[in-house]
């Protein structure tokens, strides 16, 4: 458990559960939640590599903080877009939001 691989496997598991949710969910907010899981799987890898392999003690942690900032910004923007889309289409399913017919 004090090994690099266990953290990497955990990160990969979170990443793949996120991909599964992203492909399987039909609502926009559900897809956004799955995206957060994907970002967290990546951040977990950064922390593990920083702990075990990097001579510089802080670079991985700072990258993880950057990922958290990007995730917060992404959540704010995406939620406001979803609310705007809902107002326009009365719909939060991905399939229902389309204007072109054909």
């Amino acid at each position, binding site marked *: 458990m004090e090994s690099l691989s266990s953290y990497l496997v955990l990160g990969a598991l979170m990443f793949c559960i996120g991909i599964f949710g992203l492909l399987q969910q039909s609502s926009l907010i559900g897809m956004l939640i799955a995206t957060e*899981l994907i970002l967290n799987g990546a951040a977990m890898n950064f922390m593990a590599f920083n702990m075990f392999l990097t001579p510089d003690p802080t670079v991985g942690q700072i990258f993880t903080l950057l990922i958290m900032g990007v995730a917060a910004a992404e959540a*704010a923007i995406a939620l406001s877009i979803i609310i705007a889309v809902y107002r326009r289409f009365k719909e939060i399913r991905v399939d229902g939001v389309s204007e072109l017919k054909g």
Partner: protein
Amino acid sequence: MNTIADFIPPILVAQGAFWLMVVLTLAGAVLAVIPSKIVHNVLGLALAMFGVTGIYLYLGSQFVAMMQLLIYVGAICVTYIFAIMLSPPLELDLPKPSLLKAATALIVSVIAFIAMIQMILNARWAPLAAPSRDWTTKTLGQELLTRYFLVFELISLLLAVAIIGAILIAGLGRERE
């Protein structure tokens, strides 16, 4: 005087805590993805983020762990809850996710997972002779304000732009006739 450490060795307690956090993370991740009710998904996401906080603490980084708890559980999940509560989408009944879609998603994610596991197990990491364990908040703050100052500024600018953009997008959306 008997303490709990006499019965259970501390290393066992530490390992138990680690595996408990792993189980919490994975259970939360599954809960965040599988149910079709959005509120359950958000609660699962909060659980998963809590588990990741414990794992960061186990890795030894208190500051990043606290930031994880504050930003993800305290800010992002609450923002989701607000967005769900303040707008009607919760009342919309979502259709059951189609079985074909779920099966395809499962196949794709399992293939991605197998590929990643192959890579992780086959890679030859060169472990450090003396890994630096200087993970205190003080070091992190000093580095963040000297060497990695650009990152700090970039996060601030990004968050400011994102907040203004979110207000503009959500506020200026027009209702369709």
